[in-house]
Structures are given as C-alpha cells and as structure tokens.
C-alpha cells in the first residue's frame, strides 16, 4: 500500500514502541498535541504518558535526559520540534552523546528526530538543513531518508542501533511524497547508499528532498541523451564511499547536490574524497549544486531563488555531461 513519508515515520515509531518496551519518546508537544507535524498523533492514547513524554521547552535537557536514559539501557527517541532548534542542544549532542563510547566504551542508543529542510515558507528558523554541523563530529550517525520506504526502514534501524543517530526527516516530503512500504520489518541498513536511478552520463550524489529534484532533472535531460545516475546517500555518516565510488567509476562525472549551503557542506567533503580516491576515473571537474551562503530566507520568492531544484540541477548536469 502507498503511504506518505510522514505515515512511514509514524509506522516505524509505532511498531518499534510496540516491539520493545524500552523504546520511549520525549519531546515538546508530542503527547496531547501529537507533535508539531502530528507525527505522534494517537501515541499517547496507545502507549501512555510514561512512554510518550511531553517535556518542558528545554532542548538541551531533553537530549541530556535521553542520553541518561540510554546509558541505563533504554531506547529514547527525541523529537526536536524543528531541526533548527537542535543548536540549543548542540553541546549535549557533540560533547556528551557523540564521545561517550569512544571515551568510556558505553553505548548511547539514542535517536534524535530532526524535522529539517525548506520549501514550506517557514523562514530562517524553521527551514534549515543543519546536517553539516554534525557531519564533522565523530561518534554520531546521520541519516536522511528520501522515500517512505527508506523513512520507515531507516528509523527502525536507527532505533535498534547502539549509537546516537540523528534522523533528518524532511518536512517538505512529509505529505508531498507517497510510496510503497513493506508490512512489518523492512530495515534499511545504516551506512548503505542506494542508486535510485541507474544512468551512464553523470553521477548525481544527493539525499533528502534533493533526490526527487535530481530524479526530476534526470527526466528533463533524457530527451537530450543525458542519462543521470542518482545516488541517494540515505546515510550521511558514515558515508557509503563504496557505492559512491562505484558510480563515479562508471560514469566518470560527478556532482553533489544538497539543500544545505554549499559552503562547509557535506558536498565539499564528498568532492574532496572523490578527488583523492577517484581522480583517475574523472573526465570532468566535480560540481556542486547547493544553497548559497546566506541565512535561509523567508519570502517565497527568495526561498525559490535559494533552494536548488530540478532545473538548477539539470543546468549543471548538462554542463558536466558536455564538458
């Protein structure tokens, strides 16, 4: 059956809560209200207030408390109301959760759900894509699904993982994308990218909402005989370099596409690694399509100008194919 991306997230949470009584959720307005995006609607009624915990407005305490519960062997799932607000919990994420296992050998099985991304006319503090802030930090796993199937399978895998996982769920995709998911357990392994569209001309390495846009670009370029291969990273940390390299070795041309700003973005790191590890396969420079180095703008006109889309991707991909 086809379900939305949001419903896939909801199903994953529901099934994991049902499966393991050590899984519980905490966050702001997730209980009675069902979450700012209604992802947890109905959970309070089913699982009760001890497993669906409405907290004070305290991002750092929420993440810190989740780390504490995780140290005791529980499996907390934190809902950040918006990924933007994770900055308020930054210290707990990068200094406490990320380093605990390396320092002390103590696992922190923690999931932070981070609703991120733009395209919903929500301005500078409800639209950001902050994954690069965490990409730099050892000890965290970062996932960013693009389809309902990946959304469900990756969230289940994240909840069962013994490490802190930040689960970037794209707000634009919540209700804009539908897809098939399997009933029950269909785990998507963390650390495995997936080729969403095989092609021969250019490797488009991307994730999140930009997967759909890249597939759109591929459709646009088809008539011109330009055949894009779209590699959906799905996991940003640890990166699946095997899949990335295999694609680039095949096509000889690579571009990285993300919604987050280009400066200091994950794309820069992927491009550098391709330069280091795939230089001899490359027939053209590595290009990046990403947001400019500005805060995320509010006005729909500025927002459209800010965000990468299928047209912008197609333009660059054509350049690359014809290089």
């Amino acid at each position, binding site marked *: 059956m086809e379900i939305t991306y949001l419903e896939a997230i909801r199903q994953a949470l529901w099934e994991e809560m049902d499966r393991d009584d050590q899984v*519980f959720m905490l966050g702001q307005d997730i209980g009675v209200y069902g979450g700012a995006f209604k992802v947890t609607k109905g959970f309070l009624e089913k699982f009760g207030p*001890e*497993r669906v*915990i409405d*907290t*004070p407005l*305290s991002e*750092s*305490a*929420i*993440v*810190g*408390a*989740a*780390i*504490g*519960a*995780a*140290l*005791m*062997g*529980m499996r*907390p799932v934190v809902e950040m109301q918006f990924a933007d607000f994770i900055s308020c919990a930054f*210290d*707990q994420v990068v*200094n*406490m959760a990320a*380093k*605990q*296992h*390396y*320092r*002390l*050998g*103590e*696992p*922190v*099985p923690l999931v932070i759900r981070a609703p991120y991304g733009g395209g919903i006319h929500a301005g500078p503090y409800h639209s950001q894509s902050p994954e690069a802030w965490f990409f730099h930090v*050892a*000890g965290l*796993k970062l996932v960013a699904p693009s389809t309902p199937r990946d959304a469900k399978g990756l969230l289940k895998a994240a909840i069962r993982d*013994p*490490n802190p996982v930040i689960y970037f769920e794209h707000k634009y995709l919540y209700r804009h994308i539908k897809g098939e998911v399997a009933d029950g357990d269909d785990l998507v392994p963390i650390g495995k990218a997936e080729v969403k569209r095989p092609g021969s001309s250019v490797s488009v390495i991307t994730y999140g909402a930009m997967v759909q846009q890249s597939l759109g670009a591929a459709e646009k370029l088809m008539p011109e005989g330009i055949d894009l291969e779209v590699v959906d990273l799905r996991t940003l940390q*640890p990166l699946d370099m095997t899949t990335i390299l295999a694609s680039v070795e095949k096509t000889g041309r690579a571009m990285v596409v993300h919604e987050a700003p280009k400066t200091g973005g994950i794309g820069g790191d992927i491009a550098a690694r391709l330069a280091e590890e795939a230089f001899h396969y490359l027939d053209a420079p590595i290009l990046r399509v990403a947001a400019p180095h500005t805060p995320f703008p509010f006005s729909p006109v500025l927002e459209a100008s800010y965000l990468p889309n299928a047209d912008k991707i197609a333009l660059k991909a054509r350049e690359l194919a014809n290089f």
Partner: protein
Amino acid sequence: MPADNVTPIELLKIYYYLKLTRGLEQRVSTLYRQGRIVGGVYISAGEEAIAVGSAAALEADDVIAPSHRDLGANLMKGITPKEYLAQYLGKQTGLTRGRDGNVHYGDITRGVIGFISPMADLLPVAAGVGLAFKLRRERRVVAAFFGDGASSRGDFHEALNLAAVMKLPLVFICHNNQYAYSTPLERQMAIEHVADRAKAYGMPGVTVDGNDVLAVRSAVAEAASRARQGGGPTLVEGKTMRMRGHAEHDDASYVPAWMLEEWRKLDPIDRFGAYLRERQILDDAIAREIDDRLSKEIEEAVAFAEASPFPEGKDLLEGVYAS
C-alpha cells in the same frame, strides 16, 4: 556534627575515604610537579567532605554524576586508586584507555556517569538516569554534583526545571567553593546562596556547612530519602573553599590570603578527625593504621599506573562507534 545513626564503622569508613581522597590527590599533585603527569590536575583539597559525605548517604545501587572535585564520591562508588592513577597517566588501564584524561572518567556499571569538561553537562544526563529509574519503578536515586560556576549555565537551569517538573529522584549537590577558576562568587551570581535558586524550580533548597562531612551526609540522606519516595529533587549547597588553584598550574594568586587562612581553620578532615577522637572512635593507633594502609594503597596505585602500558597508536580509530 549531626551523626544521626551512623555507626562507628561507618564513621571510620568516611574518615578513610576523606583521607584517601586527600592522599591520592596530593600524590598526583607531586607527580605533576615532577613532570610525570601531563595535562591538568584537579584537586579537591579542603572540600572532600561534600563528595564523601554525599556518597556516604547513598545506597549501593544509586548513581552519581560527579563533577571535577568529587574523587571521594567516585572512590566510594568503587572506582579504584589504580584506575584513577592510570587515568591521569594516560594509560591503557585507565577507565578511558587513554582516550580521555585526568578527572574525565566513570563507569556506568558501577553507578558513575563519566564527567566531561563543559560544566553542568552531566546534570541533564543525571536527570535522564533518574527518569529511567522512575519509568522502571526502581527506587534508586541520582546524586548530581556541580560547582557554583556551573550553576550559571543553562544546562543547570534546564536540568533542575525538568527534574522538578517530572518529580525525578535527584539530589543536586553544589560545591560552593567561592571561585570558578578566577571568578569569585560576586561575579558569578547576584544572590548569596546557590540553594536560593531552588525556589525558582519549586524544589527544596538547603545550605549546609560543606566542611562538616556529617552535615553534608545528613542533608543528602534526607534529600535522597524524599527522592526515593517519589518526592522529587532537592538542591543541596555545601559552603566550602577551593584551597588550591583551579588546576595545579594555577597559583590562585587572585584569592586573598586571609580567605585561605580562615578556611584552613575549618579543614574538613581535621575537624572530622577531632570529632572522632572526641567520641573515642579514633585514637593514635587507629590513625596510624589507617595512614599506613593509605600510603600502601596509594603507592601500589602509582606503581601500577607507571607500570601499565600506554594505549597503542594503531588503536586510535577503535571505539568511535558501538557495535
């Protein structure tokens, strides 16, 4: 000194841990001056009564979240002098296997959350451990330590508020030792007592003579008992004095000499020793026996740490993730 119903054996145990704390830290300070320890050395001289008195009030399966001057509590929870010394020397046999140094150690299986440098970071984590106890209906308590400086941080506020709102089984214990590095109290807060902050969170706040180990023990025992019965958290403030620099590189010349002179007269170990002699629990023979045992234990720890291997450079990458 409020002895409550503390037995002579327990009183001698408290005395032993006070002396062990001071002896170990003096030894580490000497090693530092001899250049046999790299990195910072943090000493709790003059404020050992807060750590030891608090830990003496806890049950065996309670958990502590120590700060950097809580060696006494760590020892009472079962961290060994050997592990402590090996940690300072960066050896493989330290609790972080050389991944972290000095006072940044712990072991959750022994009920010690590993301290990290950003002040007050452990307070939300401690709240989370308390949350796990509450959710699992375990009658266990968390004692979370911090200093006067840490009480200015947001995580202090967030943790105390969260713990109070959720009625978590926490005892927040402040070493008010007059200085945070070089910053005196009057530049840290505009109130007289850290415990006054408790009112803002709707929890009891108690100020005790932090150099009276039994007064600390009594206040923490009462708070822990209330927490264990579901009565929620308490803030206990021990007034004390940091008798040395922030770390051993710091000569603390910014501290007026008269302050140290006044506080030296209130030395917690001297006072407790006099009290025990008054009550005829301690005499010269027992004191000598304890001192002999301590020096043996301390020298064995130094020998163990110095003989222990360093971690191997090739193992650098191990343990970033739990598997």
